[in-house]
């Protein structure tokens, strides 16, 4: 190219050997002016190769670095999805405590992984309902319930426990060596020998872990009044501390002792306490029976004092469901070694919370609004049986059926109970799938993450741009002019950069409040220093080069030197630094949020992470997923930045063809 130019400017006049120029006469006709030829113009010859610009070349080199391209693509996808987060069907502005802390769900329940179910271990199994205690079997993923054979023991009565022993313990008030009596004083009955009275009791024999010991003696008596109303005390059986079944034929014993009837009879177990420690007896079950001939009252009385489940009796006595304890004692009655089985299962949270529920109270206005939509019919507001679905096969109506009417007050306010399809009730057209779960306010974590990311990225990009401008100007002036100007400007940056950034942020946030703009100011206050020092270094590097000197000699102005000659050479490093400032701003914002000085009123990534930190143990998904997003973003920015630096480095221009 340059050679061609020379050829045109200094055309070589070819002359024949030995010719004398003076001999030749030139007339104007010997020359022809090429410009005057019709329509012809002289041009430089066009490039044969394709022309390229700096940007195009940089882009081509950037594309060669595969890792950077991947990083760039990931950043692009995250940016795009965060700016599109407002399209999400899930609301992240009104708190909804009823759907708070749902598990992440991507697949249908039963897939076993990422399906909105939660694994529970060592939960109590309720043998009554054949399901985990307090959980509906419907909400347990089928086939996941495993009941441990091993028994878990409880020594206080429990709603869910079974069996165990009725432990009759000597009261401390009772003193040592005294008799402890266990008796059915509230349920006395007329014992007739002809009624085939029998009693079976099962004893346990075990010294307590609390240091108390099993009594050496255990004697069963029947006491009451005889025909002459004298006190009767008849020893029925002396069991001692022998464990197991003890059968007593009460009628036979009575006949043997010569009684036909004992009125106001009661059975009583008696045992003696020890001198040194408290004694007790363990009764696993009591079965008092009578023959067919006995009166109905006797039958129910005996039924009432029989028990097979010590825990049930003890529990119902303590919770007063069992209004009077049929058995009394002058000692302490407790339950000992009542047991329950533990189980593990997967719990389908979505079905339990968002599926069909029967614990939702429904007001008339709601039913009325559904009737107006044509989803259901109800001709009589006072009669729940008139409720009818318009299209029973579709799930359009949130109320599936009504079962009960509770008038609230007298003013005609009605409240209904029934089965509600909760996700329809909440306004979702289908069962929602919260891919990252929901947080403590019931917000969809994915939407919340992306919208927070949008705010954080927006903040970071704006501040990086501002810092780039300030740093570029400051660094250029300081680096280009040097000398005292540089010395003075450097001292200012020295002081600013000497303060740890966390101190600057804290001070600004404390003084000016915790909002978006303040945070931007806090970042910009020291953020430009990095750009400025990079710019300054570049200026020092290039301003002494020969090509700059040459340009200066030719009379180039300062502005031309700065913008045409020096800056383009250093731009790669400077721009890369500014791009890498974006993730570091997000990082700073997150750090300051962890210190409790995060943004208020704006959802940002730092606030999101620090707020969910407390849920780490119970709902790790709430912190793990956002963490993965931010880590991915950081890694991508690093890769992208590295690629960008190489691509923008003009010394590599045109290389590696």
């Amino acid at each position, binding site marked *: 190219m340059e050679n061609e130019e020379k050829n045109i400017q200094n055309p070589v006049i070819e002359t024949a050997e030995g010719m004398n120029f003076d001999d030749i006469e030139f007339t104007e006709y010997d020359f022809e002016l090429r410009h005057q030829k019709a329509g012809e113009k002289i041009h430089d010859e066009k490039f044969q190769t394709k022309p390229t610009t700096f940007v195009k070349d940089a882009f081509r080199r950037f594309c060669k670095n595969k890792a950077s391209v991947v990083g760039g693509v990931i950043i692009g996808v995250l940016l795009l999805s965060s700016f599109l987060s407002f399209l999400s069907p899930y609301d992240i502005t009104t708190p909804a405590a009823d759907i708070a802390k749902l598990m992440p769900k991507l697949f249908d329940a039963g897939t076993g992984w990422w399906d909105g179910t939660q694994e529970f271990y060592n939960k109590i199994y309720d043998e009554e309902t054949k399901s985990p205690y307090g959980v509906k079997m419907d909400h347990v993923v089928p086939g996941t319930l495993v009941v441990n054979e091993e028994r878990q023991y409880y020594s206080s009565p429990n709603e869910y426990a079974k069996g165990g022993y009725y432990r009759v313990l000597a009261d401390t008030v009772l003193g040592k060596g005294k008799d402890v009596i266990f008796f059915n004083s509230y349920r006395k009955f007329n014992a007739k020998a002809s009624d085939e009275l029998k009693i079976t009791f099962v004893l346990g024999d075990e010294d307590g872990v609390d240091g108390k010991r099993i009594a050496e003696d255990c004697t069963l008596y029947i006491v009451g009044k005889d025909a002459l109303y004298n006190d009767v005390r008849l020893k029925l059986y002396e069991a001692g501390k022998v464990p197991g079944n003890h059968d007593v034929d009460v009628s036979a014993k009575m006949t043997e002792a010569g009684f036909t009837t004992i009125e106001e009879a009661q059975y009583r177990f008696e045992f003696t306490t020890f001198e040194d420690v408290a004694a007790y007896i363990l009764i696993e079950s009591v079965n008092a029976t009578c023959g067919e001939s006995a009166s109905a009252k006797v039958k129910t009385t005996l039924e009432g004092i029989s028990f097979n489940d010590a825990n049930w009796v003890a529990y119902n006595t303590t919770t007063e469901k069992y209004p009077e304890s049929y058995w009394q004692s002058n000692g302490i009655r407790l339950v000992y070694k009542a047991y329950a089985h533990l189980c593990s299962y997967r719990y389908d949270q979505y079905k339990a919370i968002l599926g069909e529920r029967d614990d939702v109270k429904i007001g008339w206005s709601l039913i009325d609004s559904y009737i107006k939509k044509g989803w259901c019919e109800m001709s009589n507001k006072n009669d729940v049986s008139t409720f009818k679905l318009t299209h029973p096969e579709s799930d359009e109506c949130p109320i599936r059926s009504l079962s009960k009417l509770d008038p609230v007050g007298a003013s005609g306010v009605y409240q209904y109970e029934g089965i509600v399809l909760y996700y329809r009730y909440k306004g979702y057209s289908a069962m929602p799938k919260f891919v990252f779960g929901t947080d403590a306010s019931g917000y969809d974590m994915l939407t919340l993450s992306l919208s927070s990311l949008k705010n954080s990225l927006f903040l970071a990009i704006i501040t990086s741009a501002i810092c780039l401008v300030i740093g570029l100007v400051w660094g250029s002036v300081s680096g280009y002019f040097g000398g005292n100007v540089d010395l003075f400007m450097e*001292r200012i940056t*020295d*002081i600013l950069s*000497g*303060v*740890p950034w*966390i*101190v600057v942020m*804290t*001070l600004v946030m*404390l*003084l000016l409040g915790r909002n978006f703009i303040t945070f931007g100011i806090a970042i910009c206050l020291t953020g430009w220093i990095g750009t400025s020092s990079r710019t300054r270094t570049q200026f020092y590097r290039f301003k002494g080069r020969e090509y700059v000197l040459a340009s200066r000699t030719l009379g180039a102005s300062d502005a031309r030197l700065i913008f045409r000659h020096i800056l383009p050479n250093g731009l790669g490093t400077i721009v890369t630094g500014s791009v890498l400032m974006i*993730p570091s701003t997000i*990082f700073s914002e*997150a*750090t300051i949020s*962890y*210190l*409790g*000085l995060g943004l208020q009123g704006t959802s940002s990534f730092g606030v999101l*992470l620090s707020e969910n*930190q407390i849920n*780490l*143990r119970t709902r*790790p998904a709430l*912190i*793990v997923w956002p*963490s993965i997003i*931010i*880590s991915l973003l*950081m*890694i991508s*920015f*690093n*890769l992208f930045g590295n690629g960008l630096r190489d691509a923008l480095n003009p010394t590599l221009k045109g290389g590696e063809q």
Partner: protein
Amino acid sequence: MGKYIAKRLALAVVTLFIILSLTFILMKLLPFEMPPGTDREVFSYFENQVYLGYVTRFEEETSGYGRLLWSYRFEGAKSTYYYYQTPVMLQYFYWLKNIVTEWNWGVSRSILPNVSAITIIMMRLPTSMYLNIISVIVSVPLGIGLGIVAALNKNKPVDHFISTFVMIFISIPSFILITFSIWIFAYQLQWLPSQWAQPTDPDELKALSFIIPVFALSFGSVCGYCRFVRAELCEVMESEYLLLARTKGLTKRQAILRHALRNAMVPIVPAILSEFIGILGGSTILERLYAINGIGGLFYDALQWKDYNVLFVDMALFTTISLVAGVFLDLSYGLIDPRIRMGAKK
């Protein structure tokens, strides 16, 4: 050289003075926070502030001093004491006077009421120091070792693996690393405690509770050192003097140990030295997340409790550490590498 060191140190002291002055004035512009406690304790706090000159006491209500902070009347006393904030610039001079004459940095308001801020810092310092020392001891050999391995296997799978690993972990923010290690090792696997051990805990638990913090603190610097050493060593490995050493008949091992490594270490040693100064500082985030009673956790506590005096002294400590480390880094370059003449003219 001596002159240069003196100049740098003097400059650092001036910078520190300006920063601390600015910070002090800014902190004093924050709204005044009342100390907690009984009237008696509040009174003693105020009297201390009067003694230090930050609060002025009057015996009658006065205008021109801003908002009345507090008033108190002793039982049976004749007059009531009225407390007002001293003008900020005056407070600044009193502050200078207090530090110069009696090294008095003020007392805590709410963390440990009426205890001197310096004492609180001293109480919290050892924990952070232990942690930092251990993490430096762990991270320096590990980082340098990995860097050497990567450089000697340049562009082989080992190098790619190490470089990718370093690139990933240098990008991940530290609080995420801490959160994840607590989640995995403390909650999921239950191998390690989920927070810092109390003084009453058994020694075994105390030892175990060092693992996550040390890991969190050293991971970043391991990656940093590794990247740094790899870059330096790769450059040295391509230099001509190493080729000469090999030509002279040294084995590869000898050449690397005697020539390559020594030269590659030159820029790394100052970084390690300045890290030792950083031992005095604490990681705020780590100490908050792992409930460590260190100097960084103090920063968080002071912020939460609005104990601005302690916060200020903590900030002053952080600033001093970062300035001293910077000066030290610059100076040690010159001391270690004879080719660099610090402060030399063009």
